[in-house]
């Protein structure tokens, strides 16, 4: 535990607390149907931004692992992908709840195959396969290299599944076919909380991810196998 780590961790915790206070206490313009659920912008959307950041970190270390073969890079790629999956699942779950009680009111629908939602589920299954793939190898060198190649492939699918394809169809999400883009509909006061929220959740990702990496280091020293 070095001092820089402790400092960043504490800053993240204070930052997130302020963000949550701002998210609930600041007044926002009231819009029909959305009403207070517009505040979910501070929670649901950063989940995906954080997942994207985590996926980039994971792919970066996978590329590093392929280049250098270092165990450290493999550990970081795996743990980053784990936390990315956590945020992806949370993003999906929060989206389901939000849409159910906002746009699907009176329809008894929990899942309507919104294009972006469906693609996000597919995305999570692709990352699920990454963990299954890893667990099917006992031999660390092969496991590391094949998993790294697969992880790079998985990263390439992210922009297609989460941005390009969903925007071609009618969806509840901003920027989709016929919908206004994020820029056109988000009030300035909401940006005041939204951008810090994105940073805060990415910071939270960093805290969770570095904890896992440290645990993997200890496991590696104890058992010569860093897989957590």
């Amino acid at each position: 535990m070095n001092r820089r780590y402790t400092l960043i961790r504490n800053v993240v915790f204070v930052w997130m607390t302020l963000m949550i206070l701002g998210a609930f206490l600041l007044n926002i313009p009231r819009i029909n149907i959305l009403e207070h659920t517009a505040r979910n912008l501070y929670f649901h959307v950063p989940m995906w931004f954080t997942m994207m950041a985590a996926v980039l970190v994971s792919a970066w270390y996978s590329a590093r692992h392929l280049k250098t073969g270092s165990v450290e890079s493999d550990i970081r790629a795996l743990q980053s992908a784990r936390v990315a999956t956590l945020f992806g699942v949370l993003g999906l779950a929060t989206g389901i709840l939000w849409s159910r009680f906002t746009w699907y009111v009176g329809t008894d629908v929990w899942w309507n195959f919104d294009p972006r939602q469906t693609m996000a589920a597919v995305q999570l299954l692709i990352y699920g396969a990454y963990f299954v793939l890893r667990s099917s190898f006992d031999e660390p060198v092969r496991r590391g290299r094949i998993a790294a190649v697969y992880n790079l492939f998985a990263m390439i699918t992210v922009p297609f599944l989460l941005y390009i394809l969903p925007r071609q169809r009618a969806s509840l999400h901003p920027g989709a076919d016929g919908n206004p883009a994020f820029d056109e509909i988000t009030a300035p006061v909401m940006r005041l909380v939204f951008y810090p929220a994105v940073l805060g959740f990415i910071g939270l990702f960093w805290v969770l991810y570095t904890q896992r990496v440290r645990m993997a280091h200890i496991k590696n020293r104890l058992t010569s196998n860093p897989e957590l």
Partner: protein
Amino acid sequence: MTTPVRSFRPPTFPILLALLMAAITLAPATMAQDAPKREGIATGFDSIWTGANIPTQEATGLERIMLSDDKILVVLGVVLIIWFGIIGFLLRNDRRIGQLERELENHRSDF
């Protein structure tokens, strides 16, 4: 030498799969492509901005609770989901650390 401890991992992948399966069974026959013709489903987002009124049934049960106070409870639900997700992650880490502590004890007894 320590005997490798076979650790229990909550099956993330099967849970995701089950989630998707449940979604498919719960979903109505209509898919998103047909939705633009059906008011109140996928058209919901853009019709807000044009101010269209979306006809819905009378809110009952869970909806009546969630829609009260201008839907602030939906935001509470979302925050709770994230909180429980983080708790779950920390619990898993905690169990892992417990295993590492036991392995450390095994190592000590080797000397």
